[in-house]
């Protein structure tokens, strides 16, 4: 029987995770290590395409079964629920704009957290469904809309005094559904579905075999960037830091409960938990900066990038799996 500690060690003794901490350490010891921005972009484009293509290929093999539809529905449900209840928790300490932005951030997902969970399941030999990539794609956008509706609705009074700034919903919807992450993921997913087995076979030497190596490279970069933002946490106070650690656990637990109730497999349950518990650090922050400039990015970005992300990939994954493992068996 594997203990909780074994599960953590199994997760941490994984080169990608260790490269993340190597990146963080570089900042703490003031090494000048840096990764130019075009490379970050390359790694993240690569990962999105790879995740999409592989998920699409698996969907092309499995087809759209009732079980899959159930899993996808649960995912969308979580993507709408999480930002709603997060908003009201956050309103305790934050103003309307910041509460809306932070709740949107936590309502959406982190693709890298997701795939770190996938490699964890692979290392344990636990099965999971390729359709969870579709679930992830569906979960990226709703929180942006929910967050914005809150911001617009609850800030009505303030706006009245200022000049009549009409909310440009067209731009916001485009930002929510066509931002580069969502667009590329959907596109690659579709190409994966359409080209099926042949397509995947021609693409897998790049997008399959090299996946873990590129993930390690990208996590090295994320470690650098996350550590550089850490100093901003000091200004945020304990409420938000605690939020950024407890909220993922709460959201993941709600995801696990739903997964249990609707009889998902253990692997799918972990991925739903991770998607629910993870927070966005690329797509949603960009959307919020554009549509809610009043919110302070030095709140929502460091929380997501420098607290929730490291927590999830190091301790969160084994913790959620420990819970699932105990409940399911």
């Amino acid at each position, binding site marked *: 029987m594997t203990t909780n500690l074994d599960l953590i060690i199994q997760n941490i003794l994984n080169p990608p995770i260790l490269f993340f901490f190597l990146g963080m350490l570089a900042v703490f010891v003031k090494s000048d290590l840096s990764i130019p*921005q075009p490379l970050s972009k390359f790694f993240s484009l690569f990962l999105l395409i790879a995740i999409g293509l592989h998920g699409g290929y698996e969907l092309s093999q499995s087809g759209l079964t009732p079980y899959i539809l159930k899993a996808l529905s649960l995912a969308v449900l979580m993507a709408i629920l999480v930002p709603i209840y997060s908003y009201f928790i956050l309103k305790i300490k934050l103003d309307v704009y910041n509460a809306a932005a932070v709740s949107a951030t936590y309502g959406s997902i982190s693709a890298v957290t997701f795939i770190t969970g996938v490699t964890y399941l692979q290392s344990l030999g636990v099965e999971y469904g390729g359709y969870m990539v579709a679930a992830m794609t569906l979960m990226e956008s709703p929180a942006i809309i929910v967050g914005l509706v809150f911001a617009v609705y609850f800030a009505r009074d303030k706006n009245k005094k200022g000049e009549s700034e009409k909310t440009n919903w067209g731009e916001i919807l485009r930002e929510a559904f066509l931002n580069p992450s969502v667009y590329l993921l959907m596109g690659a997913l579709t190409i994966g579905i359409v080209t099926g087995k042949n397509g995947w076979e021609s693409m897998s030497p790049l997008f399959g075999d090299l996946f873990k190596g590129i993930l390690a490279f990208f996590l090295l970069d994320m470690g650098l*960037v996350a550590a550089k933002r850490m100093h901003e946490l000091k200004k945020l106070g304990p409420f938000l830091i605690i939020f950024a650690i407890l909220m993922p656990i709460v959201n993941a637990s709600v995801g696990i409960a739903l997964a249990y109730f609707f009889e998902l497999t253990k692997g799918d349950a972990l991925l739903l938990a991770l998607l629910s518990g993870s927070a966005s650090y690329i797509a949603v922050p960009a959307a919020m900066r554009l549509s809610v400039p009043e919110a302070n990015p030095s709140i929502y970005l460091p929380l997501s990038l420098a607290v929730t992300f490291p927590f999830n990939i190091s301790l969160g994954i084994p913790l959620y799996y420990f819970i699932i493992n105990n409940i399911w068996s």
Partner: protein
Amino acid sequence: MKKIEIIFETIYLNRLLDLFSEKGILGYTLIRDIEGKGSTGMKSSDQIGDIFRSNYIFTICEEEKLDSIIEGIRDFIKRYGGKCMVTDVLLITPTVTDQNLKNE
């Protein structure tokens, strides 16, 4: 002529270009992914994602247009942050006479 330089967050580029075309500014030069420090902390070029990244843009325009443009930029900065500077420049055109150079 006047040179108007603006430093602004990358993410608001389209809005600034919209403002430019509203104000009849037809030409500009843009340098992406610069870095900087100011009242809102550090902007660096090696972010993951587009938050905390800056661009630099400048446009050369006639002095008559200046007031109207500056007004728009002031609103822009009030809402989205950034810095703006104005200097005098002499624009060299293929047809300008040497006279202009002397008179600057």
